[in-house]
């Protein structure tokens, strides 16, 4: 079977030598897949040779044939096991006429007797000689497809142990044949990227603009330039999976190189996640904050999605970003190593395009500030994002309508502290009325945020302050968890989980049902 074939697959030092020879001969880098197919084919040929050697001079058993002592015979009914004829005698059966009986010894020493020179039509007489070919031979492609991960892991382990081999973007090559990329070429590459406002450019584009490296095949030049750019801190590889794109690091937005403070969440902070009720977990999954452990909550992977709907949080509205949440990760490109991926964002309302960045480890997508400002999108706006299948661009949309006067929860200063007032404002986008927030004095809100970064206030004390302020607008003094979550993130970045744990663990908060909370005794 193919699977058992792959389980026995190992890469020997001889295999690595063979690959090095191949790389020297061809002078082009090979992808891991190409190497895998070469090694599988080599192994199949070795097995075929061993099989042929094993069956050299071996005759397939047919009862009608005659045999000599010392002859080697393969028995179709015994999985083509090979045995040696050790003796011959006359057969004795009045119904079968004259025939012989051969005694054979199998390789395990076991002896059996078989009929020979048999005159009647035995079905084994029609077995063709070609039957003794190796069983279950598949193509290298079929073998690789059946157990890609296992085979790739074995090969990678062996190649990594070789000092002469170098890997870049999934391709392997021999160090001996690498083209020397001098400083002049790197300056030219920098100049080319400068001309394109930093990038992102593919390696062939850069090679074309610098006039090539003078020697070696296109594939080798590409590999060597990639290696040189990769080792030079001026250049950043920003391509999605299996695509190499280069950008000048100094021209990348500061918000991509360093996470904006307003988005920074200390994921290492412990909280009592076991205290969350099933309803709270369900709400956390619904909100799908990028720092919520949504994948851990769901037993099975969710179905593939083409579009994501989310509610814009203050932190992202202020930073001009979108969260790289569990659902967003399904539509956005990823990479093996690159921490930043350059993408194109498209405004679905007018098709205007923006340079965007997926910042994988810090879990956000940068590049939406201009779009938010253009449409005056409020905190709490319903946003949708989808991947354009024809271009891989990310299309961002919202529920646009003619601006109308809506009640908005405004962040205001109350003696220098945070307060809220419901005021009418013109809004031209669909929004979640539990999470909507507005602010006329952004400088004041920024000051509030900075003050909370430097303070040692506990999450509970911030929630008590927010609950006190937000509950004034409600006759029953209750505040919805979503409203609290939206307001909390103006002051400090938190996903819903720690907030729920703080609410559950503080006797000053009373749960009144349906995700509403109020201060104890109010």
């Amino acid at each position: 079977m193919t699977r058992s074939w792959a389980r026995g697959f190992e890469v020997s030092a001889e295999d690595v030598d063979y690959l090095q020879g191949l790389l020297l001969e061809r002078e082009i880098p090979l992808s891991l897949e190409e190497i895998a197919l070469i090694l599988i084919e080599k192994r199949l040929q070795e097995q075929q040779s061993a099989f042929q050697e094993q069956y050299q001079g071996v005759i397939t058993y047919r009862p009608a044939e005659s045999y000599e002592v010392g002859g080697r015979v393969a028995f179709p009914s015994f999985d083509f096991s090979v045995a040696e004829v050790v003796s011959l005698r006359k057969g004795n059966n009045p119904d079968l006429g004259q025939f012989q009986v051969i005694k054979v010894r199998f390789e395990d020493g076991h002896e059996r007797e078989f009929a020979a020179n048999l005159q009647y039509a035995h079905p084994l007489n029609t077995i063709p000689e070609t039957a003794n070919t190796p069983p279950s031979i598949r193509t290298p492609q079929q073998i690789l497809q059946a157990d890609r991960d296992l085979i790739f892991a074995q090969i990678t382990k062996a190649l990594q142990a070789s000092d002469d081999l170098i890997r870049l973007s999934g391709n392997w090559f021999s160090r001996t044949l690498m083209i020397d990329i001098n400083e002049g070429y790197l300056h030219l590459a920098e100049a080319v990227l400068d001309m394109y406002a930093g990038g992102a450019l593919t390696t062939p584009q850069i090679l074309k603009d610098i006039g090539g490296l003078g020697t070696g095949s296109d594939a080798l030049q590409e590999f060597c330039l990639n290696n040189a750019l990769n080792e030079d801190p001026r250049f950043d590889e920003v391509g999605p999976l299996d695509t190499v794109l280069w950008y000048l690091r100094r021209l990348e937005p500061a918000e991509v190189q360093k996470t904006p403070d307003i988005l920074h969440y200390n994921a290492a902070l412990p909280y009592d996640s076991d205290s969350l009720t099933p309803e709270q977990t369900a709400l956390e999954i619904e909100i799908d904050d990028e720092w919520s452990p949504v994948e851990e909550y769901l037993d099975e992977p969710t179905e593939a999605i083409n579009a994501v709907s989310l509610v814009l949080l203050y932190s992202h509205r202020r930073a001009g970003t979108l969260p790289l949440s569990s659902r967003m990760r399904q539509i956005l490109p990823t990479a093996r190593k690159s921490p930043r991926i350059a993408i194109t964002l498209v405004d679905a309302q007018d098709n205007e395009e923006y340079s965007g960045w997926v910042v994988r480890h810090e879990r956000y997508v940068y590049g939406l500030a201009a779009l938010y400002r253009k449409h005056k999108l409020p905190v709490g706006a319903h946003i949708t994002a989808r991947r354009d299948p024809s271009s891989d661009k990310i299309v961002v949309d919202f529920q646009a309508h003619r601006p109308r006067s809506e009640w908005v929860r405004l962040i205001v200063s109350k003696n220098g502290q945070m307060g809220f007032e419901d005021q009418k404002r013109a809004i031209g986008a669909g929004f979640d009325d539990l999470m909507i927030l507005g602010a006329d004095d952004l400088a004041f809100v920024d000051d509030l945020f900075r003050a909370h970064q430097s303070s040692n206030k506990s999450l509970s004390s911030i929630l008590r302050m927010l609950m006190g302020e937000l509950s004034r607008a409600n006759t029953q003094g209750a505040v919805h968890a979503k409203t609290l979550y939206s307001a909390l993130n103006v002051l400090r970045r938190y996903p819903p989980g720690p907030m729920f744990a703080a609410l559950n663990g503080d006797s000053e908060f009373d749960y009144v049902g349906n995700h509403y909370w109020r201060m104890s005794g109010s």
Partner: protein
Amino acid sequence: MVQQKASSFIKTTVNTRWHIDYSWWDQHTDEDLRTYLLSHLSQEQRESLGDLSGNHLIDLVDPETGEVTQANDLQFALQRAAQQPGFISPHTSLVDGIFRALIANGNRPLSANDLSPILSRQAPVILKTLSGTRVYKGIRPTE
């Protein structure tokens, strides 16, 4: 090597396979095996048995593998008889019918489901007969 087990100690089903355990004849019955085996031959076949007495061991050739096994004159006569039409007839008793079906199959094991079309009897009836506490004619399960 076929394992020998008493049917009363294992849970048998219509797929449990049975064979003739010739050692049972030595240990569990006073009945003479050769006499019983001869009873499966016709008068004519019994008389012709004398013609085979010079051939001490006869080579039987497996129809599928070509492998040769050896049989004595009586076993060979039974093999021959088993190829004749009417060896198993509606008038044959159930136990004798099972015994004859196993002989015809070279004592390679058969299940109640295998025996049912040969004997024109329902598999549960065959199973009920074989799976009781009593062993008939050395017919025992192999598994």
